[in-house]
């Protein structure tokens, strides 16, 4: 936030949360916030250019243990993005696993001002926060993994949903986290014995099923006024024929009432969960079936996990999935299981348009965006860096906006796209309003951040603005892609941080975290079991576990009261 006034004049504004669809209007900012009017402002002339609220990324892996393990074991990736230090910017490196500084600069250049780190292992939460502090410009938050935790599974087994909620509250607070993240529930615990779990398999030794874990965590999450729903990476990610597991997972939370007007489940990187066929040989798109489900139901939102062709670094808490991937490619493989909580795997991957499976994967991400009718249910992501690095978002934007570009691309790719995917037969094209929805409006709303000034330009919102150097009439896919890669201006909290595609200022971002407020008696009862876990099984003491305030120098707290 900077003091002073700023006027962005005559831009064509797309602000979906406030229903503003391509209106020529002025945006006034004072002391970092959007206001009705200003008196002596600095003026930015946005005449005829596209103006949007700062972008809000709902799901990306940008900070923490596995991101850094990815950087460490891929110096060849580090060499791809080198830029020397400037008066304003630190030295940059990396493409799919950029260093922290490059991460902030590159997102800001695309007009983004908030990014959600999608998976924080609770025991290593300090690490995630240490890196977040080194990511300039971006406001941020991180979601702790709460689904393979022994505490969670114990309460799922005993059916004590209130005690489960008490644990969920404690771990979100202890990690300075934002919400409930689920990654291959039960499967990652099974991976500690080199096994995996399907949705209704019993987790070894714990006598619960992944389905029960998902359902219970949704119940626990809705016991508080949580800004976000449970955020789910389901079972069997990346397996041919997994789409039925996906819709069965959605079904689990159907009857659970959310605390407010948002879905009960956010299903992430859905591209990886929309597969038909029985093997890689007869692999096909089932995006249609997933879209059909999402169209008919209101309790699920999704993000795409859309593929960017080329080399990337895959990483997830889904340890067994990364092992399978490594067995396919034979490339290097890192794994890091985390006691009592979670795990992770990392392996490089090349998406090639000459390979049938990759081509179909590439189509699926876009099919989901185009077949789901209501863009308020869809977020644009690449599950950075899993389906491709975030720097590829402008490519996806240009694809969604141009049938011609999709057709031209498909013509160069494996012919499987014509008989095992639906993309070539889809005519829909996104307009800028829909792009604004899937990159800021929907994402801010789904995370509950619109109530905290993110993702819109209404009075009182944060002065986060992206000005793209295109006119609303622009139809050329190449020019659209270029404009969304480097803004004319990015403004963060009223301060110009990017001008003409160059970073000109690097203020520190705020870290948003949620404080679920739980009944003391319940907390005390839960604490007995928790302390026993620390006493006997953790390798770190109870008192050394919670993230200290020093790790979150720019905090923004959101309280989530217990719903009586």
């Amino acid at each position, binding site marked *: 936030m900077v003091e002073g006034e700023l006027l962005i004049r005559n831009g064509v504004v797309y602000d979906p949360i406030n229903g503003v669809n391509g209106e020529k209007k002025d945006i006034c900012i004072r002391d970092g916030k959007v206001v009705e009017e200003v008196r002596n402002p600095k003026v930015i002339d946005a005449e005829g250019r596209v103006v949007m609220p700062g972008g809000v990324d709902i799901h990306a892996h940008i900070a923490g243990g596995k991101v850094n393990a990815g950087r*460490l074991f891929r110096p060849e990736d580090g060499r791809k993005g080198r830029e020397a230090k400037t008066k304003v910017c630190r030295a940059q490196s990396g493409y799919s696993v950029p260093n922290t500084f490059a991460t902030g600069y590159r997102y800001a250049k695309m007009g983004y001002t908030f990014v959600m780190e999608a998976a924080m292992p609770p025991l290593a939460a300090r690490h995630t926060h240490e890196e977040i502090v080194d990511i300039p410009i971006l406001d941020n938050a991180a979601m702790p993994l709460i689904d393979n935790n022994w505490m969670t599974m114990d309460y799922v087994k005993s059916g004590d949903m209130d005690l489960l909620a008490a644990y969920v509250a404690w771990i979100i607070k202890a990690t300075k986290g934002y919400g409930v993240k689920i990654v291959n529930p039960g499967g990652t615990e099974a991976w500690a014995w080199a096994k995996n779990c399907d949705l209704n398999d019993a987790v070894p030794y714990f006598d619960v099923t992944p389905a029960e874990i998902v359902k219970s965590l949704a119940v626990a999450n809705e016991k508080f006024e949580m800004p976000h729903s449970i955020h789910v990476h389901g079972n069997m990610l990346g397996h041919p024929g997994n789409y039925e597991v996906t819709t069965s997972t959605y079904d689990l939370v159907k009857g659970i009432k959310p605390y407010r007007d948002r879905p009960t489940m956010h299903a992430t990187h859905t591209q990886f969960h929309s597969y038909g066929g029985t093997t890689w040989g007869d692999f096909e798109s089932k995006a249609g079936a997933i879209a059909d489900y999402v169209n008919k139901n209101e309790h699920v939102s999704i993000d795409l996990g859309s593929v960017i062709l080329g080399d990337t670094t895959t990483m997830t808490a889904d340890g067994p999935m990364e092992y399978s991937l490594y067995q396919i490619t034979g490339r290097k493989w890192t794994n890091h299981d985390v006691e009592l909580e979670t795990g992770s795997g990392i392996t490089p991957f090349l998406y090639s348009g000459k390979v049938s499976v990759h081509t179909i994967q590439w189509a699926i991400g876009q099919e989901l965006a185009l077949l789901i009718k209501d863009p308020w249910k869809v977020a644009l992501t690449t599950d950075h860096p899993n389906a491709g690095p975030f720097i590829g978002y402008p490519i996806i934007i240009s694809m969604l906006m141009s049938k011609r570009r999709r057709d031209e691309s498909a013509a160069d790719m494996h012919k499987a796209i014509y008989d095992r995917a639906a993309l070539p037969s889809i005519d829909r094209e996104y307009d800028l309003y829909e792009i604004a929805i899937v990159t800021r409006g929907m994402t801010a709303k789904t995370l509950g951040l619109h109530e905290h000034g993110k993702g819109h330009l209404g009075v009182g919102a944060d002065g986060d603005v992206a000005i793209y150097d295109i006119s609303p009439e622009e139809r050329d896919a190449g020019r659209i892609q270029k404009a969304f890669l480097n803004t004319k201006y990015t403004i963060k909290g009223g301060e110009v941080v990017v001008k003409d595609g160059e970073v000109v200022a690097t203020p520190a971002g705020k870290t948003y975290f949620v404080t679920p407020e739980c009944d003391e008696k319940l907390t005390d009862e839960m604490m007995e079991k928790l302390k026993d876990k620390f006493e006997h099984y953790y*390798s770190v003491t109870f008192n050394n576990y919670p993230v200290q305030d020093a790790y979150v120098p720019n905090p923004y707290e959101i309280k989530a009261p217990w719903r009586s």
Partner: protein
Amino acid sequence: MVEITDVVCSLCGCVCDDIVVEVEDNKVTKVKGACAVGKSKLMGHGRIESPAIRENGSLKDCSYDEAIKKAAEILAAARRPLLYGWSSTVCEADKVGVELAEEIGAVIDNTASVCHGPSVLAIQDVGLPSCTLGEVKNRADLVIYWGANPAAAHANHMKRYSYISKGYWTEEGKKNKKLVVVDVRKTATAKMADVFLQIEQGKDYLVFSALRAMLYGYEDVVPEEVGGISKKDLLETVRMMKEAKFGIIFFGMGVTHTGARHNNIVNAIQTTRAAHTHTKFNIMPMRGHYNVAGINQVCTWETGYPFAVDLSRGYAWYNPGEHSATDLLVRRECDAALIIASDPGAHFPGESIRHLAKIPVIQIDPFPNPTTEFADVVIPAAISGVEAEGNVYRMDNIPIRLRKLVDTEYMADEEIMEGILEEVRAIKGKESE
């Protein structure tokens, strides 16, 4: 007297965090739960008492301001500065170090360069299937120490995390576990082992290859004896590996710095992957300094690379062997060095030390060591984990916050580094005017 619990030990890569200390009159008077070496560190011992600058061959006491200013002058004037050490201090100081390296176009390198650097190179080749130490504690029924002697070097390792520890599926401790030790001599750790494989010096690569072949079902290609170990013993080891529910290899300097060096570790990791086709198997380097893992982490997220990073081009350039600290010194390329929280004077090859002794050297450390003997500016630091707090990464990359136990007049590493950075910027600012 005040009792402080959950004290985090700032000695080795075990980073034990359940120590209890008593503090009286601002002094640590009693330490419970630490090993002998950790206890000695926490209790405190002889240290550098004052900042000092070398004049006419001998160190002369000065103020912090004078020492910091002198250090900044040396670094700002250097054409090829080296910033080395970083493993026995906190990440907060390491971060300022990377920033300083960018500012002056230095090479920044850390002790991994002469320690587990070969392990890093191996990880960059094949990856690292691993886990946290609590996973080992709760699940491991087969523990292998290879070229590592924790009984001497990581004294609490077996008790807290591995062979002797008790966990969820290992509640009877070592009773239902097996310990295999591979070493060139019968170490204290080897004496505890169910199976001790006495390997010939430098034959690790061969023995890994033999195990790997057997794990993949090619035992017929393995000769009757490999690296001094009989085929019978190797087969027995492979049987134990296959039958384990959860196995782990901990490896140390005995493998990283002998024979095939980083190729040993590539082979060790590939042996782990071979075992993983039968059961759960992990591997972990026994990191030495309490935060060597941490400087690798910080350096990686800030520059993209874990050690031996050359910032002279303005962006990070990584080519270990070309500009790792010892190589730079052997080539007599660097013309000034800042040494922090480490002792190259005791650990570098003679040829490197000879050059180091010739160039201006700034030392930041709580304790005197052989490097002090030739340092030109000596800046005493608060002892991290006793007099200063901050973040460190355990050998399994779990971040833990060191506690401050007593007050001190000494500046913390982070403050000293910030002081130097500020002074360097002031000098460079004047130069560009």
